[in-house]
């Protein structure tokens, strides 16, 4: 059992290392020095407190979208819809944040709950269709991503603003922005949301590992027949799983709307928070702690990479390739598993 756990930690670590190594080869191949490249990446993520603050800011929504994908995975569902759930969450948070007047202890929680509820609704639809009609959740969630994107754009333009490209800023009473954090990190956009994200990770762990709800959800994910035999409602659990997953992603949207930006603008395309969440969940082995660690890595790569063109002259496209390679090796961790098992056998 112990060696099994070690194995689960070892495989993602090796995946990341191979990804970094492959990235180094690519940089070498294009005539860049990989060491300066990675030093620039490191500096860009942790070089001073400003970068550190920005990294944490990026990690925050990654944790939540990672949880959204991981939670559904544990029930045997593939939530590709975190992207759309983020958008509707963002919209709902900004809507509440800009149109309601209330003291902070009501306004801020209300805005976050609205975001979670919007995301939950966006999860409920594919959950319901899957449970009652057997429609595959991947198809529905992909379609709902577009529905969310263009509906949100229309609402931002026509309802929340007067034909502008962005909404007004949310009221101070609904803002997650933290002057204290900002002063500490040379005015990065780091905000209080990180605490909410970490708390959400604890909730996910508790739900999955410690409650009868998690017991049923996992059971349905592992074996629907045995779950039905044991008197669980397979349909209800499928819907519930997508609702909770959607709520996590919706909250990720509120991190952007109430924290990082403080408004919502018309978006020309997806911001990839949801799609990156899939990679975060995979790398984190769909556990709460794993997701937090994987989100930290992704936030680091994303923010640190911004420094690579300026400090090491590596073009951004190459940086994207390197990140993609890391994801590739994570996703192909099956191969790494196989190789390790092979070596173990040889030793004996």
């Amino acid at each position, binding site marked *: *059992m112990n060696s099994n756990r070690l194995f689960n930690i070892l495989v993602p670590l090796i995946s990341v290392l191979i990804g970094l190594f492959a990235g180094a080869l690519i940089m070498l191949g294009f005539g860049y020095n990989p060491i300066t490249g990675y030093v620039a990446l490191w500096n860009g993520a942790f070089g001073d407190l400003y970068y550190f603050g920005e990294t944490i800011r990026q990690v925050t929504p990654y944790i939540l979208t990672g949880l959204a994908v991981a939670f559904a995975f544990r029930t045997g569902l593939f939530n590709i819809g975190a992207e759309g759930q983020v958008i509707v969450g963002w919209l709902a948070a900004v809507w509440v944040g800009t149109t309601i007047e209330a003291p902070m202890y009501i306004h801020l929680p209300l805005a976050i709950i609205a975001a979670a509820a919007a995301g939950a609704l966006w999860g409920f639809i594919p959950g319901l269709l899957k449970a009652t009609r057997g429609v595959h959740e991947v198809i529905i969630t992909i379609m709902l991503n577009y529905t969310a994107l263009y509906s949100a754009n229309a609402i931002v333009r026509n309802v929340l603003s007067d034909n502008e490209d962005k909404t007004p800023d949310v009221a101070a009473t609904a803002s997650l922005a933290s002057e204290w954090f900002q002063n500490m990190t040379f005015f990065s956009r780091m905000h209080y949301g990180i605490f909410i994200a970490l708390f959400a990770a604890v909730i996910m762990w508790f739900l999955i590992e*410690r*409650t*009868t*709800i998690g*017991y049923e959800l*996992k*059971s349905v994910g*592992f*074996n629907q*027949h*045995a*779950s*039905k*035999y*044991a*008197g*669980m409602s397979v349909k209800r659990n499928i819907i519930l799983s997508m609702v909770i997953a959607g709520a996590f992603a919706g909250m990720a949207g509120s991190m952007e709307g109430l924290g990082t930006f403080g408004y919502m603008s018309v978006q020309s395309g997806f911001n990839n928070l949801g799609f990156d969440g899939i990679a975060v969940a995979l790398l984190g082995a769909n556990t709460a702690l794993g997701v937090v660690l994987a989100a930290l890595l992704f936030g680091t790569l994303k923010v640190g990479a911004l420094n690579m063109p300026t400090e090491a002259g590596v073009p951004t496209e190459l940086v994207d390739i390197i990140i993609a390679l890391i994801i590739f090796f994570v996703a192909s961790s099956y191969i790494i598993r196989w190789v390790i098992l092979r070596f*173990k*056998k040889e030793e*004996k």
Partner: protein
Amino acid sequence: MDYVVEMLNIRKEFPGVVANDNVTLQLKKGEIHALLGENGAGKSTLMNVLFGLYAPEKGQIRVNGEEAKITDPNVANELGIGMVHQHFMLVEPFTVTQNIILGSEPTTFGKINLRKAEQEVQALSDRYGLKVDATARIRDISVGMQQRVEILKTLYRGAEVLIFDEPTAVLTPQEITELMQIMNALTDEGKSIILITHKLKEIMEISERCTVIRKGRGIDTVNVADTSVTELASLMVGRDVSFEVEKRPSEPEETVLKVRDLVVKDSRKVEMVKGMNLEVRAGEIVGVAGVDGNGQSELIEAITGLQKSESGNILVRDKEITNLSPRKVTESGIGHIPQDRHKYGLVLDYTIGENMVLQTYYKKPYSKYKILNKKEIYKKANALIEEYDVRTPSAYTKASALSGGNQQKAIIGREVDRSPDLLIAAQPTRGLDVGAIEFIHKRLIEERDKGKAVLLISFELDEILDVSDRIAVMFDGKNVAEVKPDETDENELGLLMAGSKKEKAGGK
């Protein structure tokens, strides 16, 4: 001595376990050689070594006296070794011939010569008395016929040595007799057969010699003529085994389960139970005998709430439970040992502990306010593991890591422990070895003696005859006859199961 296949001192290891240790099996030309062992004893591993799926760490394989390196199944085929699998590997919409030539189709200028192949297959079938119609589609022929197609497949590929993996598990008694005739016809023609089985009676009946393996080790090879069922059993298990299912006569009391005019359709909307009537009373074991596919599975699914019934009633202690949800059915006092323990009985990725509370996790003390109490769960699990002799490294081991017998003991522990008024056991000993079967039969009878009603569904006639107090024969979705086990025999039951009327069968 002329050996066609010799496996000498074979050793095969997997990480952490020795699956075969110093096993020797020598197959004479023209003999039927039984390979006997409990589940998990290493029979399949040994045969997979012979078939080229595993490479042995030590030992030697000789074919016709020459050392052979069998690196993959194709090599085995070329050496004339063929396997008749327990689970048939046939393409249902294809004809018999199409299935047989699959992978080695005879072609003329790139076009499959089906006519020629059909003639060849038919000739082979006639030669060994298989009575297979080469042009029939697989989905239209019986399970017994499908098995013969598997046999033909190996013969068509030129097999001289045939390995039969648990061939009688899916057959009716009549089909078993016919299979034995076929096996004798094969050996008469000079073929040699390795018969993998744990059914001792069959070994006594048909094979000349028998190699016994226990816990991976080769124990002995005996001449069947010089041995007895009891000796074989103790060789296999490593201790004396009692075959007599000891029980006193039943004292049935009030009716617990009543099924009236029940009609159930399966998932494809085909009517499978067509007006079933059945009663089970407290303190008796009712066995339902029948060939697989005559509505037994659907009957159980309807009683346990897994499948809706079309019409009719199911009553437990005079309370209507027709079309209630599985949970309501469970709570009305029914325990269910499902036919397919991997599909229904267990969540294989859960630990044994988590599986032990699969029916009760939402109740105190296992959870309170929806929060699981792991301490209580594992306390219960450890108690059940102890009481039902589930051999597992710990309660934290995944259910998938246990052997079939121990998985089944865990399920029985879980279901019996809830002390249900009615215990439904569907094929409770399928694929288990003598030791585990003995244990499970004892438990079922204990429950009966406690005054519980037990409904036993099994395709094994021995089991039905040994354990039941009353036998209901199910044919074509109906209860066609009820007999007492001491007033009937396998022959009569076999005929009833095949649909002949009781009078014609010469019954009482």
